[in-house]
């Protein structure tokens, strides 16, 4: 599906401003103070709490196959994750996953 132009022109400026304010927050106006322990703990897990959940449905029910679980995409996802964990290399994991996907699709 294509991105709607109106959506784009609302989302991008708001995302840019919000992201900037997050970066500016303490450095800019909140100054030198510690975060409460509970907040600090929660913030440590923001990225890892969102990104896996964002891709999970796309891995199990890919839109490209009309929502049918697809062995090629499932295998590619597993290889990406395993190579990423084993090598800690983002690029290595992307390449391994991509090669797996196209190898199985081509077979």
């Amino acid at each position, binding site marked *: 599906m294509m991105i709607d132009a109106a959506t*784009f022109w609302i989302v991008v400026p708001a995302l840019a401003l*919000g992201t900037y304010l997050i970066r500016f927050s303490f450095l800019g106006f909140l100054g*030198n103070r510690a975060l409460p322990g509970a907040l600090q703990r929660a*913030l440590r897990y923001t990225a*890892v*709490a969102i990104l896996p959940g*964002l891709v999970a449905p796309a891995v199990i029910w890919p839109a490209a196959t009309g929502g049918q679980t697809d062995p090629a995409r499932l295998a590619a996802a597993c290889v*990406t994750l395993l190579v990423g964990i084993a090598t800690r290399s983002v690029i290595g994991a992307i390449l391994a996953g991509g090669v797996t996907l196209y190898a199985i699709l081509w077979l």
Partner: protein
Amino acid sequence: MAAFKSPFVRGCLASAPFVIVVVPFALLFGVVATEAGLDLLQVMLFSLSVFAGASQFAAVQLMQDQAPVLVVLATSLAVNLRMVMYSVAMTPHLGAAPLGTRAVMAYFLVDQSFAASQMEFERHPDQPVADKVAFFFGTVAPIAPMWFAATFAGAVVGEAIPPDYALDFAVPITFLAICAPMLRSIPHVVAAAVSILAALVLSGMPYGTGLLVAAGLAMTAGALAEQALQRMRRA
């Protein structure tokens, strides 16, 4: 690296290795965003104004899924909330710089400049603020231009790629690849597992709100797991 006296040059050298990560990531963003129907100007404005790769991919994915604007924003901004920690951690070192300088540094406070600067400032906390500022801008110098140039190249390439090359799966693969090295402790693994399970179970919730609920649950699970582990170690 004592051979280089200039803190700016030391900063450049410290973040130079990150170029290998930034370039393919930006290329891929350019390609994926173009395939999603954005034109060259939109893709460049996106990368220049937001300048935070993971949240840009998340926003593109959610906008393609026709999620409501508020859900797209809440989810993508949540991805960037980790930068609150960066802002907190940089303040003791850079907080004494003039406001204008801090305003510019905030724009450039990305994963790579933070990681390289944090390491340096922990190792040498006693350098003058001006040196720390110079080091910080040094870490930005190799990263930012490459981010913009590679986004541009990706967008140009994306316009030439036919839509039926299974590129739908580039975003999931990229995200999995970013996540994998993050799974460096048990609480991180717990958070990721809860995120996946809850997102799948709640995928029927309207307007993509299931993901936001899943993210909240996963963050809480991670924080609780960390606390539980600490208690076990102390006992």
